[in-house]
């Protein structure tokens, strides 16, 4: 499929609030959209990662038209996304979406969900899918190439990735161009004594690095960063 034929990908961020049954409904509804209702058209990101992330994660809603689903009126997902990444295309709250529907059982665990809970998931998911179609239909921006499939892993899906060579292996790191861009904007020089540790620390937030490979990763990151800086000149 050519780039011109790529469907517009829409981001969905869910609160997944652990304390409340509606958090479970929001999480499952997003999974339903990702896997069944709009596979290949939807990307997601873990809300805690988004909220605590750096510019790379927070570019999420700038790169994708974004829909928010919160479990309750505290609206943590909407608050965090709009604060860090700008306006969203649509924002929903499960408690409001389910007004008039049969009451939830109160279950939070997947072990205990009832038919009414699963019907609520479906109802919420279908509204999200409709909002997704609307958001995609009105989007006019350009999008980065999505890294991986939307249903395989929500963490950092859709962020542009970069590669480094570590001990003869090619390693793909999600968000690497954005990490380098942020470091460059912060004035970090490739030759600075702090650079290896700083690059490694940022990359480690999103990518597992075995302790035994720390030095190799740091060296590879500095080399890739140096190349990135040179190419921008």
């Amino acid at each position, binding site marked *: 499929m050519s780039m011109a034929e790529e469907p517009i990908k829409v981001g969905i961020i869910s609160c997944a609030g652990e304390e409340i049954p509606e*958090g479970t409904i929001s999480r499952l509804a*997003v*999974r339903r959209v990702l896997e069944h209702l709009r596979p290949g058209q939807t990307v997601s990101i873990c809300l805690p990662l988004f909220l605590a992330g750096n510019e790379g994660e927070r570019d999420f809603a700038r790169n994708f038209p974004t829909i928010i689903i919160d479990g309750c009126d505290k609206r*943590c997902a909407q608050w965090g996304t709009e604060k860090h990444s700008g306006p969203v295309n649509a924002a929903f709250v499960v408690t409001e979406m389910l007004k008039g529907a049969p009451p939830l059982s109160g279950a939070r665990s997947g072990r205990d969900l009832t038919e009414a809970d699963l019907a609520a998931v479906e109802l919420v998911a279908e509204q999200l899918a409709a909002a997704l179609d609307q958001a995609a239909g009105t989007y006019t921006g350009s999008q980065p190439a999505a890294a991986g499939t939307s*249903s395989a892993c929500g963490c950092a899906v859709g962020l542009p990735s970069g590669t480094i060579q570590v001990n003869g292996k090619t390693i793909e790191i999600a968000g690497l161009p954005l990490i380098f861009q942020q470091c460059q904007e912060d004035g970090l020089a490739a030759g600075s004594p702090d650079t290896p540790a700083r690059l490694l620390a940022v990359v*480690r937030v999103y990518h597992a690095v075995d302790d035994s490979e720390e030095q190799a990763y740091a060296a590879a990151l500095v080399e890739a960063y140096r190349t990135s800086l040179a190419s921008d000149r």
Partner: protein
Amino acid sequence: MAESASSKVLVIPCSGIGKVHGLMAREATYRVVEGLEPETSDTLCLALLVKGDEEAVAAVRTRPCITIDGCPKLCSYKNVQLAGGNIAESVRVVDAFKGHKGAQPGTATELAGDGWTITDEIAQQIAARVRELCGGEEQ
């Protein structure tokens, strides 16, 4: 002895939406706070804490916390730490797989048999730690 809500150990999962490990962290939490140690443990919305909710921040600072993370990004651990939380234990779902080579845990939407088995093991481990923290039975 039943603990008051203000002294319950907080079990805080990442609930990562993209991986089965996030679902396992979430389900292990419910197994502990609803099934194994309902009188001495409770959970907290991680997003609410990250948002900076005053009550949530005060809770993690004054009560022992056990974080459960699905992936190496350790969102729960890092966010509780950033909030100044009192982390008594950090649990990583991936570590529980070491004794289950080749296990098929299911998906980020639904756990399969292996996933529930490993999740219950994680929950047992956390429940034991909750009891320790409450001055009860030790493992």
